[in-house]
């Protein structure tokens, strides 16, 4: 059991005119806790996960696992990642047993009988029939594959698990079962977990803390229930309002013209607050708020509630209603 810490991590791709996918992100996943990370595509949340496991280049800052820089750790690290698409994350030509075996630490299990027993144990752990170890992934459903992917991640005996959109390729009826499984595994094995999803409802269900990412930055982070019931950053509120729900209308809280603005181009991030071209309480609506364009709200974020990266956080202003009734429970 150990904590995962991102210390001012940046990930840059390409040369001088490249793209900063993750910009100075600091985030801690405390030991044994679940931190949910939400944000839209292109916000850098998956890149952050990939940086932690060495699949994306860390150009500045450090990723610390139990206090030690991951770059100094041996190749088989107690840090594992489960991928989004269970159809491409398993080698179609390897039986699921082989895939799981491959991820076991070398020498951890004596002989092939020992490894087979471990495969059976892991398959049982994720509620799959251990007799299916010889099955090829092509014969499994999406939900079953995702269980295999989980078992493979657990084969590496991780202290920390990163789950990157692991339910978004699954059907609703299967999603629940996988989430139940993830939660019970996390509790049983006391894993620290970074749970990434674009779906706030999914993140809310699992997480102790929630971090919100926008254009490569963390704009708000705090205890799950607080972030959802008392969001400080305007973007968090937009995400909450936009979450589809069977009991809310499409036209709640219409944003007028701002509703149709385009997501910003990560190659040319806006100056000051990166959210300002879309912010309904920003300079495009309140002309006097030039500070949003000129000054980066990341400065001083540590002093604000939920470390919100905004010059005009909700608690600075008069208390307003939460965008959606019933979002708090």
């Amino acid at each position, binding site marked *: 059991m150990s904590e995962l810490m991102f210390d001012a991590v940046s990930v840059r791709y390409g040369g001088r005119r490249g793209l900063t996918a993750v910009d100075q992100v600091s985030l801690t996943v405390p030991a044994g806790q679940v931190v949910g990370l939400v944000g839209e595509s292109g916000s850098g949340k998956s890149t952050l996960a990939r940086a932690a496991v060495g699949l994306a280049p860390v150009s500045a800052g450090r990723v610390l696992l139990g206090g030690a820089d991951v770059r100094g750790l041996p190749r088989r690290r107690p840090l594992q990642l489960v991928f989004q698409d269970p159809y491409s*994350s398993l080698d179609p030509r390897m039986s699921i047993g082989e895939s799981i075996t*491959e991820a076991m630490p070398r020498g951890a299990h004596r002989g092939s009988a020992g490894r087979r027993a471990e495969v059976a144990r892991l398959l049982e752990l994720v509620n799959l029939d251990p007799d299916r170890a010889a099955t090829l992934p092509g014969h499994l459903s999406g939900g079953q594959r995702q269980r295999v992917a989980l078992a493979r991640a657990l084969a590496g005996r991780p202290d920390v698990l990163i789950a990157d959109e692991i339910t978004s390729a699954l059907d609703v*009826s299967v999603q629940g079962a996988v989430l139940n499984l993830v939660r019970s595994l996390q509790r049983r094995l006391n894993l620290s977990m970074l749970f990434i999803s674009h779906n706030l409802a999914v993140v809310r269900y699992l997480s102790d803390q929630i971090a919100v990412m926008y254009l490569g930055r963390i704009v708000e982070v705090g205890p799950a229930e607080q972030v959802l019931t008392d969001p400080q950053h305007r973007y968090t509120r937009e*995400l*909450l309002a936009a979450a589809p729900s069977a009991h809310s209308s499409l036209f709640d809280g219409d944003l007028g013209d701002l509703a149709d603005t385009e997501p910003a181009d990560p190659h040319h991030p806006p100056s000051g607050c990166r959210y300002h071209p879309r912010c309904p309480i920003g300079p495009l609506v309140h002309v006097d708020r030039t500070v949003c364009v000129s000054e980066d709200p990341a400065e001083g974020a540590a002093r604000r509630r939920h470390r919100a990266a905004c010059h005009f956080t909700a608690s600075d202003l008069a208390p307003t209603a939460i965008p959606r009734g019933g979002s708090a*429970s």
Partner: protein
Amino acid sequence: MATGVGRRGSKWLAAARTPLGACSIVLLTLVVALAVLAPILWQDRAFAVDTDAIGQGPSGTHLLGTDSLGRDILFRVLVATRLSVTLAVLATVIGVTVGLVLGALPSVLPRAAGRLVISVVTIAVAFPGLLLALFFAVIFGVGTHGAVLAIAFAMAPSFARLAQTLAASVVGRDFVSAAKVAGVGRIRLLVRHVLPNIGEPLVVNATIGAGAALLAFAGLSFLGIGVQAPDFDWGRLLNEGLDGIYLNPAAALAPGVAVVLAGLAFNLVGEAVAGVVGVRTRSARIGRRSVPAAGTAAAEEHGDDALLVVENLQVAFPRPSGWTVPVRGVSFTVRAGEAVGVVGESGSGKSLTGLAVSRLVETPGVVTADRLEFAGTPLLTTPERELRGLLGTSLAMVFQDPMTSFNPTRRIGRQLAEVSEQHQGLPRRKAFERAVGRLRSVRIPAAERRARQYPHEFSGGMRQRAMIGMGLMGEPRLIIADEPTTALDVTVQRQLLRLLARTRTEGDTAILLISHDIAVVSQTCDRMLVMYAGRVVEDLLTGDLAAGPRHPYTRALLAATLELDTDRAEPLTVIPGRPPEPDRVPAGCAFAARCPAATDQCLVEDPVLESVTAAHRVACWHPQEDAAPERAREAVTAGGAE
């Protein structure tokens, strides 16, 4: 596993029965048999010098005549098979091995060294193969060894390139990343994950490459820098035969024909193998079998304003084992200006229903219906040409991935304009102006400028807007949107759903929104059809969703949908079991195996969609009665789902 192997085996058998497969097998067997047997049987006769019969034409004793030493040409050609084929195969094996190593190196070497290898290969690929072969032949010296190496090295670059391209596509897949995260080393990564997944196309190309090597070898020998006397291959025989071509054309023709036939054998085998392993897929031919008859459905009352009438729609696909029917008798109506949602999980047949309505189900799929009418026109009986105009202007489709619906090489504005040029006969300028107007109406900022951009310059949400804009180029009376927001972020999703809703009210356009997300549908539509295993199981007003759907599946789906107020203390509700495969739908209710309310009747009798109130239809023997759908969480064993 066993079925997988069986299917594979039958695929090979089926391929062997096609003309291509049969030809290639016969030719290859012939070539191999000759290569093995000819030298054993006819070695002596091929070398027998007969000074009495020098340079003769074809005759009874020498079918193809004799050469300048009086040796029988037919036997010489037959005997030369072994050397010609062996050398070609040898060259191919060396060439492919070198190519593979070169191709694989960049993924194992440090980055800079890898780049160097790639650029060397890139330069080598730019040279014509034969030129390279000649160049190497000169370097390695005249003779058999030199020629083998020359041809091998001439082949290597193109194989290296192929291996690199294939490997790059595999390396980008998640399972390779997953192995890396698990701590698997580079070499093992290459051997266990990359090579097996690129093996098939490589084998196919190597086989075809062997044909080319055969030809190249004959060329070198013909030029005198390949096989040297006293050995002989077809190239040398060709060379010798050419000297006396006016006296005995057969002497030159025979080795030529041999080269062509053997080359053909390799190429055909390569093609046939490619067909089976799916490098290039050939659709298997299916005999005309009658489509299974759909059950009868109770005809519905349609008002005068019915825009789309679907009655007993069925979509069937032939499989080797019989028909599979993913859409089994779907009936519904969409009135003018109405927004109807179709909800279901993957495999429920919802997307196929949408495709069938827009006549986009591709052969060999078969669409049947008692009635399928759009704007009063029967879609199944009206000839394709007449339909094109109607569908082109009055029906718009929006798919999940707009990138595949736009031509990536043409500007967005032009692609929109084309619709009007074709269907409304507008001149180019007018059509473009209309395109810009439509882009503006779907709220694309700076529409004028964006119209001149290419699809890849648009973000996902903007592309989806442009797609809707394209649909609006005509005067659509119905927009069918199939998971239009699934690939988009929630904020963008809401923008797009609003746009759809607005389009509907502004143009009195009906919408058929197909989605897996019951929340999205209930926010956007007046009415929703819930589909399960190819059937509509419930048809209700979205307003009634809160009051309580009647079908157990709809209830389960609703309960399984996570919301922002789901109780965190409890395990999530799941629907135990999984939907039936479309070719194994049970006799009774398809949901029975997963249904908490199922009785014996459900197992044997298939419920039909029947009205419970004027605007509510349910296909269930025991529609649930109690009002509010309590979000009861059934006690579910952890392993229950799927």
